[in-house]
């Protein structure tokens, strides 16, 4: 019986952890914009901005 009570307590604690993670995410504004991050992740963060971009040809057409 004590095992059950211990497990319930533990599961509640874990669940509370998730609840607070969610509340933190809301507070830090992560739910403000659900679209842009999905694009941002596809944009490479490469530092080298070479003048001769090979893809440049396609732009001219």
């Amino acid at each position, binding site marked *: 019986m004590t095992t059950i009570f211990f497990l319930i307590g533990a599961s509640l604690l874990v669940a509370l952890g998730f609840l607070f993670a969610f509340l933190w995410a*809301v507070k830090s504004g992560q*739910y*403000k914009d*659900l679209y*842009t991050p999905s694009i*941002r992740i596809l944009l490479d963060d490469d530092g080298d901005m070479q003048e001769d971009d090979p893809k440049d040809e396609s732009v001219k057409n």
Partner: protein
Amino acid sequence: MSDLKCVHCGLDCGNKPVWQNENPFCCEGCKTVYNILQHGKLKKYYSLMETPGIRLEAPEEGGKYAWLDREEIIQKLLEYRQGNVSRVRLFIPSIHCSSCIWLLENLSRLRAGIIHSEVNFPAREITVTFKHDMISLRQLAELLASIHYLPEINPDIDKSEAKQKEGNRLLRQLGVAGFCFANIMLLSLPDYFTVGYRLDYEYRLVFGIINFLLIIPVILFSGVDYLLSGFRNLRKGIINIDLPISIGISALLFQSIFVLASDTGPGYFDSLAGFVFFLLIGKWFQQHTYDALSFERDYKSFFPVGVLRIEPDGKESNVLLDELKMGDRVRIRSQEIIPADGHLVSDKAHIDYSFVSGESEIVECVRGEEVFAGGRQKGSSIDIELSAAVEQSRLTRLWNHDLQSKKKDKSLKMLIDQVSKYFTLVVILIALVSLGYWWIFNSSLALLSFVSVLIVACPCALALTLPFTYGNAMRQMGIVGFFLKHSGVVEVLSSADTIVFDKTGTLTEQGNFQVIYFGKTLSEDEKMLLRSSFRHSTHPLSRAVSDFLGEGKSVEPEFFQELPSLGIFMKYKDTWIKAGSESFVRNEKSDIEPGSKVYISTSFGTNSYFQVISQLRNGLDEVFQNIKEKYDIHLLSGDGPADASRMGNFFRKENMHFGMLPADKHTYIQKLKQQGKKVIMIGDGLNDAGALAASNAGISVAGSVYHFSPACDAIMKASQFEKIPGILGFARQSKIIIHLSFLFSVLYNIAGLWFAVQGLLTPVIAAILMPLSSLTIVVFTTFTTRWLGIRWLNVN
């Protein structure tokens, strides 16, 4: 037309492409941006998306953002300022693709002093953190403008901070309710599997106490808004959906606490938490809004925030709109809107009042003539001496007058409120009857059955029907470019029986003319001479005629003169051409069918005219074919009756009204409403603002939905005009979905009440019935609205 596409914006380069290193540009502006990005090593902008650039119709003039140097404005705009670091959020309507995001988030490469920039794409906003000792707010705005991302800044508009906070609160409420619901459900489960015996005392006690602790935040935080609103409305004598919800919550709570305290059962804590959780999901689903669209613009958002004032000593100073006084002299730059009524000080001005009056022609003014607020200057800068302050101008007064009527009348009661009233009364009646019945026959069951009825008569399915049906409908309409202010507009659209159209800009396309020639056939040589003369004139009608005559051979006239608001005169060798208004060309004035006509008279004997009419939108025939039978349709136009015959194809004669001033349109709509009609107004400009506000549902048609549009209930992309019958059909049929959902809800309630009135309701039954009914509604409404979307709007 050439086949060259501008490297920057992808538009056709026209006759005179601007070349640079074999790269064609449509204009100098695009070339400049290309070079700026080239130098900033931001060429990747052009490889992410093909020709992502933005073209500006008119070059920006310096000093447009000078007012951003003023301290009080900076204070208002900055979100954060500490030390030498500031942060600001700017609205940039022209953000449109992933290249934009990439470029704007790499602003720091373009200019030292910018620390970080982040784009919120759905809201079309950029948040920039910058060192204000290295780059000022004004310089930041100018930097954005220099790459054609014009920020639209209005310090008076609340940056929806409150709305954001409210949204966050709802999310938090939802999170808490979900957490509590899941845990209470788990702890309640063991009880449901014990048939014939009860759980051990320790389990009952611990589970009960934890459940009770978990329900506290659900009531006091997640569900408190329903309780308060239900109570508040009851005191005012209003019965809406919040009342049965409050009754349900209270009954569940007190019954549960009672059985827990008396150790007679597990209580209904799980049903209660689930109830609140599902309600909040519905609310959250309904809250969907289009962040980047503004449905409530007042006149100020149409005006420039800062105006260039010419002081008596000739110096220029930047002042804010509110500081303008009568007698001030202001400079209006090209494409700017005149902020207040006044007299023209410059020699000549071309003012486009289409936005204010709905008239499509550009008005030419000469020195001393009166100009009115709301007009847009086309051409070079002009000076104006104000004869009124901003607040006293004709346009502003009109706007404020309309605001009075904006308080929507209550005749159009929301469906849910009417239904809730009956629902509440019927439930209370059943509860009382069952109380009375058991009081007589078995008094031990009386109170139990009474409370059971209140518990099980769950308004959850009712409360979820509208948010999910209308919320889904709103999303489907958004896909095809029809954006609603909130999901309740679907209901208004579905019950409308009258549609009023504006003409200019709504049924006709702005700036797209159709030219018809009346008179004897022109030879190639005559055409060539006409072409040569018209192409020298900048008047919009000349432009239209010039386009009509097309490209081809032309000659340079030996003599050419343009007489303001009259016409043109040209001489070539021994021929002459006179073109323009009737009084100028023919020395007579006839009043038959006034309209946009360009008369010509030539030495080679041509005596005829061009009629210039604005082009009708595509697909008008089908649109009107479709809505003619179901709706009473009217036309209100600010223009003269020149178009009466063309419009007669669509409207009945008595329903067409021309020469309507904005105030006339407003009263017309009000009159229709007094006749008991439910009116949809479809318009576009400021001249329709009053009518849009007065109607039950105002729909504003906009070429670019993020730009100017008057206050309204829905904004629609002009290119999607032909979808109007589909949208109205969708709205009408969504009503059927709602009625079916209500039927489901009633069936579930009958099932629940069957147990309740007999006093047989147990927590298990409630725990099965409540989520089941809610889920049925959510699934049913979602699938059926999807299906309607495919059927009416061709949404995939």
